């Protein structure tokens, strides 16, 4: 739990900075191609880290992973400060335009699929909601659990911060893109923080990447279907999104091999071990 909560943005940025400093101090002799800098989504984070450990062990290549949100990943790729941007949403039009203007050609590689799980406190009697109901809750038109058949208690809505890819994909998949989420919604800065809040707050609702769900929270069925490897893979669970690695143009050499990891047997087993779904 400590690990999750301390993941908040600023620290990550500081750590990243420190890592960069150490790296530049120690490894100036290393050729640029011998290190891979990966930045972005906190959802892809665990996956990227496990890939990085594997890759370092196998090829002796240093891979630094920093989790600062998909938006930061995109920003770093545009500014050419990372090799790979991990993103839990597709790049937006303005981002691609900005990248093109700087001579960067962002190319998407799908890593895995992720079901966005809608979670509540284990003590909540509700076990299923329709997509429309969830959307109304987040837009603020439904504010009490009794309106969806639960106990008489105000709903504590928990969302992610604005540079989260999970937030973007949630909006795209559930509420619709241009919709404003209610101002009453609380904002947390990582999957772990959302889980920690939902698991301790009786009337809370939040959303997590499938890989982050455990017994401390209760996953809701959306339109009657629970997210699982099967339902995500065959598309019956609707709140599903791909997770991406973005590179500048077609990668080559070691970066290529890193990007292709999800298609190897070892990569596939890491993906399913962490609760994500192979495409």
């Amino acid at each position, binding site marked *: 739990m400590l690990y999750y909560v*301390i993941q908040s943005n600023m620290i990550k940025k500081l750590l990243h900075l420190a890592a960069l400093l150490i790296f530049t101090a120690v490894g100036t002799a290393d050729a640029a191609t011998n290190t891979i800098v990966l930045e972005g989504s906190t959802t892809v984070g665990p996956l990227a880290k496990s890939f990085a450990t594997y890759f370092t062990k196998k090829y002796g290549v240093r891979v630094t992973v920093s989790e600062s949100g998909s938006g930061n990943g995109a920003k770093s790729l545009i500014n050419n400060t990372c090799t790979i941007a991990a993103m839990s949403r597709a790049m937006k039009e303005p981002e691609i335009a900005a990248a093109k*203007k700087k001579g960067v050609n962002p190319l998407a590689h799908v890593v895995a699929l992720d079901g966005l799980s809608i979670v509540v406190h284990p003590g909540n009697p509700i076990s299923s909601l329709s997509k429309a109901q969830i959307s109304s809750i987040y837009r603020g038109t439904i504010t009490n659990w009794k309106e969806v058949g639960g106990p008489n208690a105000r709903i504590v809505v928990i969302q992610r911060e604005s540079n989260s890819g999970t937030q973007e994909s949630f909006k795209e998949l559930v509420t619709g893109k241009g919709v*404003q989420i*209610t101002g009453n919604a*609380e904002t947390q800065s990582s999957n772990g923080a959302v889980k920690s809040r939902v698991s301790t*707050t009786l009337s809370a609702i939040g959303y997590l990447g499938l890989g982050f769900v455990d017994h401390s929270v209760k996953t809701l069925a959306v339109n009657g279907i629970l997210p699982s490897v099967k339902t995500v893979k065959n598309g019956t669970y609707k709140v599903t999104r791909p997770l991406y690695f973005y590179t500048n143009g077609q990668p080559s050499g070691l970066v290529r091999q890193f990007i292709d990891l999800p298609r190897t047997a070892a990569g596939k087993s890491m993906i399913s071990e962490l609760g994500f779904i192979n495409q």
Partner: protein
Amino acid sequence: MADDSVGGNNRTNAFVISARKRAIQKVSKTMGEGMLLAVASFVAIVVLFIFYFVARDAVPFFQLRGFSEFFTSSNWYPADQPGQFGALAIIYGSLMVTLGSAMIAVPMGVAAAICLSDILPFSIRQYAKPVIEMLAAIPSVAFGFFALVVLAPLLQNNGGPMLMWAWWILVSPFLVLGVLVVSDLLTNSIKDPQRRRQLYAFLLTVLGLIAVFLLYKVGTLLYGIQILTGTNALNVSIILSFMALPTIVSVSEDALQAVGRDIREGSYALGATRAETIIKTILPAASSGILAAVILGIMRALGETMVVWMASGNSSHSPEPWFNYLEAIRTLTATIAGDMGEADQVTGSARYHVLFAMGLLLLVISFISNLVSERIVVRQRKILSGQ
């Protein structure tokens, strides 16, 4: 003989300085003064530069969006297309937690400082003060973690009883004191000692009963409160007050200590009790230092980011009703920290500059309050010195 001649030599050398030595002295004096001036002005220049650079990036926001939306609307949707940048609720949230933490930390801090400087024996003070100051050494992430993982669930599960106990513990001493003082004041004018004693006893009983009723009634009211979300303004206010406490205690204790022994002894010599000496002599004499301590503490609370980002809930709406400390709020500092990640000149100009506008606002607020406190301190000093 030898001693004499050496002494004589030294004496003449001390008074007759060669032109070369004088020049060196002059140069080193100017250099030394210049160095000190440079160091001193460096700090001032840094502040000015911060002001300049923050303002430089804040101005484009107001050029793009004007003033009215920022200060009057509560719709904070910076990531939308087109974005909305109403920061009223966020500004209000900042003021709310600052005020809340001041309400807890100032009475507690000043009381603790008085206790440390004038009531506790020296041997205890020696140990108590460093322990209080140690609070300042705890990193704010640790406070934030505590607020999120310990205090928030605690408030959700036992919020009502906790509020009731807090009310009883904090308010009952003041009520007892108030009852005593009010009945004393009301009976003061009666000359006949017999009648006076009777009325005093009567008033004491009546007011005491009212006070107990008040304690009980509000206590049960608070007991019934169910706190919906533990990451709220109250949680943040409590934690921030702990963070401001060491500053307030330490600086006001220094101010109280600076009031000389002569003043204390003068007061005792005139027949004043210890309470009278503290309230009527020492506190007024130290008031400017205490005020400085309070302002420093409040600034700490206003500028704190990590705790607020982790424990305030970050929901950009004004609580309803406006004094509801049990709702999640969002502050300026947390918004800057949280939204900086994606805000970029490339992908959205207003979205980037609005954060600097918030930074500028924070700077201006702390600048103004520093200025005001400075004025009050100067005026107080004038009054005390009898001018």
